[in-house]
């Protein structure tokens, strides 16, 4: 049942560029998709370990900058009169490095904060994002500061035997984002259904008990943070090569808040939650644009979020799944009673 829904959803998403020709809408879908990947990575931490990263955009932004700088090249002075010169590399390597570097940052943030957890993790992640933003803003030689990194090349996929395919059109980028989103989704799904995912769930539900059966808290949470940050870094890289210009505003707190809203409204701790929430809040601006000024849209977001949580308190996906399964379990209970009665009537 669940598999059918997933396949239908993927097929529907894959068919979009075939009938949707409006570049504005396609663009909105691509950026939404990128943010959905970010929201999925946030959900791995928030939904499956209960740790709220309020600086999650830092990993996204680091991915974006690492990828952009790898593909643009740079020439910076180091202390002692040395210069570090990097010639441009293909964007696909930038994507790989973005994943690695963001994951590494996740490791250090996790290592620093998971000894104490809870509110400390929230504070460490906020500070981390702010520090990274200030670096991006002030290390002008490397990042161009507020002048932004421009002319970032589009991602080119190496096709063995055919040379390279540079993804210039919206349709190509749409499929790239969809593919990365699918990989991230499958990765997270495998992870949370493995013994590792059970360890995370155990820690979230009852840490004392989890520890008593041999689950290592720091290790488990740090691994989750690394994977989460790495996925966010991948999303950031896609963003940089699609938009092709990034400035320190990418680290703005509001971007983290957007991801948190996507996760909470869709349902934290459910795999499909951030996808559903992400699509709603990513596409809401498109729907509201003809009727509202951008400033007023924020008020509408708040209204929609409150409305969703009022009707479906655990988020859209978990609340609907619960209602659905309750109805079904009633049906199976009835069926088994009937079976039992039939069995009882039959002579031995």
């Amino acid at each position, binding site marked *: 049942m669940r598999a059918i829904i997933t396949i239908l959803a993927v097929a529907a998403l894959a068919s979009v560029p075939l009938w949707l020709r409006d570049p504005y809408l396609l663009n909105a879908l691509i950026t939404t998709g990128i943010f959905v990947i970010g929201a999925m990575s946030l959900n791995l931490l928030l939904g499956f370990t209960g740790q709220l990263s309020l600086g999650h955009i830092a990993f996204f932004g680091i991915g974006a900058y690492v990828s952009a700088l790898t593909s643009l090249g740079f020439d910076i002075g180091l202390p002692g009169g040395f210069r570090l010169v990097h010639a441009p590399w293909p964007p696909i390597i930038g994507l790989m490095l973005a994943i690695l570097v963001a994951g590494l940052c996740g490791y250090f943030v996790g290592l620093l904060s998971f000894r104490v957890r809870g509110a400390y993790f929230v504070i460490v992640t906020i500070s981390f994002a702010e520090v990274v933003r200030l670096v991006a803003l002030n290390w002008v030689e490397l990042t161009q500061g507020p002048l932004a990194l421009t002319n970032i090349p589009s991602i080119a996929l190496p096709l063995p035997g055919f040379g390279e395919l540079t993804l210039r059109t919206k349709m190509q980028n749409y499929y790239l984002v969809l593919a990365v989103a699918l990989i991230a989704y499958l990765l997270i799904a495998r992870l949370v259904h493995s013994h590792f995912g059970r360890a995370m769930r155990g820690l979230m539900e009852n840490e004392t008990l989890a520890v008593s*059966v041999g689950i290592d808290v720091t290790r488990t949470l740090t691994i989750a943070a690394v994977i989460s940050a790495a996925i966010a870094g991948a999303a950031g890289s896609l963003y940089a090569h699609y938009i092709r210009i990034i400035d320190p505003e990418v680290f703005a707190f509001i971007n983290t808040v957007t991801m948190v809203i996507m996760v909470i409204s869709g349902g934290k701790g459910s795999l499909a939650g951030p996808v559903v929430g992400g699509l709603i809040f990513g596409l809401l601006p498109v729907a509201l644009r003809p009727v509202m000024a951008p400033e007023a849209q924020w008020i509408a977001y708040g209204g929609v979020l409150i409305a969703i949580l009022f009707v479906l308190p655990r988020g859209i996906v978990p609340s609907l799944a619960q209602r659905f399964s309750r109805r079904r379990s009633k049906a199976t209970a009835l069926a088994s009673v009937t079976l039992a009665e039939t069995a009882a009537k039959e002579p031995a």
Partner: protein
Amino acid sequence: MTARSVAMTIDQVAVLFGGLVAISDMSFTVGEGEIVSLIGPNGAGKTTAFNVMTGFLTPSAGRVTYQGRTLTGLKPHQIADLGLIRTFQRTSVFPNDTVYDNILIGLHRRGRVRLLDAILGLPGARASERRLRQRASELLEWVGLERRAQDAAGSLSYGEQRLVGVALALAAEPSMLLLDEPVSGMNASETHRFVELIRSIRDRGITILLVEHDMPMVMTVSDRIVVLNYGRIIAEGTPDLIRNDPAVIEAYLGHGVGHA
């Protein structure tokens, strides 16, 4: 009692919370395969002793050794890795998961596979997962919860939740099991079945240290009893010995017999 090799040694352990003495100078040993009970009035320091043995508390003085290893400085999950597993008085289950999934979480120690193998779904990881599910079913059958497997653990009765707690602890493959008031909240027949369970756990070679208030149960099941009062050991010996020990009777019933 036949001579056994020593599993656990508690050596001059003291625990102070500020000025409050929770345990003062506690020393005793538990033999391999033995069932030892730790009893005493409320506030005698029994649970504190458990917390010291399992690394949830660091003793102010003294040390605990298990199978020749000093436990001082080890984290709870590292002590669990030595096969020393405990249950809890109150927080005993993962409430939102099914009983079956609870046991699977408890099987963490046995189910370690490389993360990458699990993500890629390699045959080794899949085989391990099958073994875990098999083992989880066996454990549920052992404690008699197989019919509750698909219910949320938080929805079970108090007595059944205690059984889930024990099954969880067994899933972690203990060589020694520390049970903190396992039969509180159980009715007489549940308690009776639990005594059978404790014996069957011991029959598989698992050492048991028990904290319990249910005296008839303690007297039936224990090989040896250690009595704590105000953080001190006031008596130690076989159930028969303890039952007639004047210091124990005084601790439980107070003065008066002689003065009345």
